[in-house]
C-alpha cells in the first residue's frame, strides 16, 4: 500500500512539475528507484493490481478534440529545457556552441584524453576498435580504401558534434566546448586540412568554414540500381 501511495504521489508530482523536477525532489528523500515492485495484491482473491492509467503531464487539459489532435497531453518545452539537450551541430555552423580552442591546446587535450585509444600519431588501434583519424587521402578508389576524418568525413561540424556528444569512450560527453574546438583544431591540423600552427584557432565561425577534402564525395541514393524488374 505504501508503494502504491508513493507512486501516486510521484505521479501527481510529475503531473505538476514534470519528470525532471520530480526526480530531483525524490532524490533528496530517497535514492532513485532501480527496479519495479511486483504488482500489489488486491481484493479477496489476491488479484494483482493492474497498471494504472498513465497521467498526462499537461498543466491544463484545455479543449479536447481528438479529430484535431488536441488531447490535453504533453506540455510546452521551454527554451531552457531544450537547450539542456540540444547539442547537435550542423555543417553550416548552426548549433555550434560559443567557445574556442587552439591547435596547441588541442594537442594537450588529445594526449590526455584521446591518444590512449587513437594513438600518439592518430593512427588508431584496431585491437580496441579505435579508428585511425588521419591519412588515407586518395585511397577511396583503392582495393582497400582508408576511410578517416581526413580522407572521408565531408564536414568538420560532424567531427565537433561527434567528439562533443560521444567521446572519449570512457567518459562520453565530458569535454567542454573549448576542449572540443581545440582537439578539432589539432586533428584537422594534423590532417593538413587547416594550419598546424600552434595558434591556429577554431570557433563556431571558423569551424563552419573549414572545407573538408571529401566534401564533394557523396551522392544521393540512386537505387534501385541493380537487377531486372518484372
Amino acid at each position, binding site marked *: 500500500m505504501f508503494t502504491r501511495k508513493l507512486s501516486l504521489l510521484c*505521479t501527481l508530482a510529475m503531473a505538476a512539475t*514534470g*519528470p*525532471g523536477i*520530480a*526526480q530531483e525532489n525524490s532524490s533528496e528523500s530517497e535514492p*532513485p*528507484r*532501480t*527496479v519495479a515492485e*511486483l504488482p500489489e495484491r488486491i481484493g*479477496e482473491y*489476491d488479484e494483482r493490481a493492474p497498471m494504472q492509467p*498513465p*497521467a*498526462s*503531464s499537461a498543466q491544463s487539459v484545455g479543449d479536447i478534440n481528438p479529430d484535431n*489532435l488536441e*488531447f490535453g*497531453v*504533453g*506540455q510546452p*518545452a521551454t527554451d531552457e*529545457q*531544450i537547450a539542456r*539537450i*540540444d547539442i*547537435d551541430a*550542423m*555543417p*553550416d555552423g548552426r548549433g555550434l556552441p560559443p567557445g574556442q580552442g587552439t591547435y596547441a591546446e588541442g594537442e594537450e587535450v588529445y594526449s590526455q584524453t584521446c591518444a590512449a585509444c587513437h594513438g600518439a600519431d592518430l593512427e588508431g588501434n584496431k585491437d580496441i*576498435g579505435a579508428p585511425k583519424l588521419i591519412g588515407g587521402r586518395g585511397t*577511396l*578508389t583503392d582495393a582497400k*580504401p582508408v*576511410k578517416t576524418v581526413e580522407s572521408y*568525413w*565531408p*564536414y568538420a561540424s*560532424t567531427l565537433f*558534434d561527434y567528439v562533443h*556528444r*560521444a567521446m572519449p*569512450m570512457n567518459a*562520453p*560527453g565530458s569535454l567542454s566546448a573549448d576542449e572540443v574546438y581545440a582537439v578539432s583544431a589539432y586533428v584537422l591540423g594534423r590532417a593538413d586540412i587547416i594550419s598546424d600552427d600552434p595558434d591556429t584557432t577554431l570557433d563556431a565561425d571558423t569551424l563552419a568554414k573549414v572545407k573538408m577534402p571529401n566534401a564533394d*564525395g*557523396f*551522392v*544521393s*541514393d*540512386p*537505387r*534501385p*540500381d*541493380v*537487377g*531486372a*524488374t*518484372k
Partner: protein
Amino acid sequence: MPRNKRFSASRYGPTERHMAESLVEIERQMLAGAPDKEDCECKEGMFNGLTRRNMLAGGIALGGAAFTAGQATADAPPGAFEHRVQPDPTKEQGRTILDDGGYGSRSQFENEVRWRYPTASLDSSWSMTPLASGHGVITPSGLHFERHHAGIPAIDPKTHELILHGMVDEPMRFTMDDIKRLPAVSRICFIECSGNGLTEWDEPTLKTVQGTHGLTSTSEWTGVRLSTLLEMVGLSDGAAWILAEGADAAVLTRSVPIDKAMDDAIVAYAQNGEALRAEQGYPLRLLLPGYEGNTHIKWLRRLEVSDKPFMTREETSKYTDLMPDGMARQFSLEMEAKSVITFPSGAMKLPRPGFYEITGLAWSGRGKVTKVEVSTDGGATWREAALDGPVLPKCHTRFRIPWTWTGEEAVLQSRTVDETGYVQPTLPELVDVRGLNSVYHLNAIQSWHIAQDGEVTNVHA
C-alpha cells in the same frame, strides 16, 4: 534491506535474481498466512525442495541445480530454468503454477541464443538472430538482433521524456505517461541492419545463416504515429528533415526525411505485446518501417525538425556506401528486397536423402513480397514457393517449398520479387555496379551447397 541488494549482481544474473525474488515473495505471502480459499495439495512441493535458506546460502545456480535438490549440474540455457526431468510425466504431478514467479520461461531443452560478431569493443558491437531455428515470421523479443554503439543504458521510464523542437510552431515535451495516453497503433514489420551480410561481399565468410543474415528480425511494434506528435507541435514551412537522438552514451543521431516521418514512422514503446526490451530501446524507440536499422533510434529522447539533414557521424562516415569511383552513396535508407533459405542452411548436416521442406524468409523495405522462387540447382531452374499469409508490407514473409533430396550435390537458392517489381539480384550483379567496398546493403541471392554427405555450406555460386 533494499530488494536489489538481497541477491548481489556479482553472484546472480538478473533472471536468477528476479526469480529468486519472486519465490521469496511467494513464500513470504504464504508464511504471512495469506488467505487461501481452499487448502489445496498443490501447495505441497511449491518450491520443489528449494528453501529461502538454500537460496540465501548462495553458491548454487539458482535456475539450475536448486530444483533437482541434488548436486549442481550444467546451467540451463539463458531464459530457461533447469527442472527435474520426470521419468514418466503421466505418473506424477508436474511442477506447480507460477513457480517461475509469474513471468514464464522457455523450455530447458531449447538453447537458441543471439551470437555476437567478434568486434574489438564490447560497447560497440552487434548480436545476431538465430534465423535457422526460427518459425513463422515473429522474432522472439529475446532473440531480436542488437546493434549498440555505446552499450545498453538502463533508463527509468518515470524520468524519461521526449522533446520535439526546432522548426515547429510549439516545442513540446512528453513523458512516457503522456505518450501512452495518445492514440496508438500496432504493426508487424522487420528491422534489418544495413550491415547485414557485410562479411559476404568478397567471399563466403561466415558459416551459418545467423552469421550471414542474422541482422534482421521482425516484431509487432506498438506506439504513437510520429505524424501525430508532429501535427501536435505543428511543422513550420520548409521543414524537411528531423534529427532523432537517443539517450545512450553514443547519444546516437540520424536525420530522417520529413516525408518518412509523416508517412509510417512510429514512436514505439512496446514490442511483441510488452514493453520494449532494454536492448531494443526501452522505454522508447523510433521505428521507420523498411528503413535501415541504424535510423530506428533507440532510447529516443529528442526530435529536432530542420530544413536540412544534420550530417551526423552515422550518416556520413558510417552507413554510406563507397562506390568503385570513390564516390559514396548517402541516405541509402530503404532496405531492398531480400530473401534467404533458413532451412536447410549453413553448418547443418542433412542426415540422409529424403523429404525436406525448404523454408526461409523474404522481405522488402519497399512494400510487400509478391513472390519467392527457389532453386535447388544453383539457379538453373526455379520453382515458386508458397507464402504463409497474411503477407504484410515491410515485414518478414515465410516461404516454404517441398523438396526431396536424392543424395546428389545441390545448391539451394531463393529469389524474391516485391510489389514494386524489384527482383532480388545475384551477388555478381551487385558487385558489377557497387564493387567490393560499399560494405552496406548486400541483398544478393544466398547460396547453400549440399554435399553428398549432407553437409550444408555457405558458397558463392
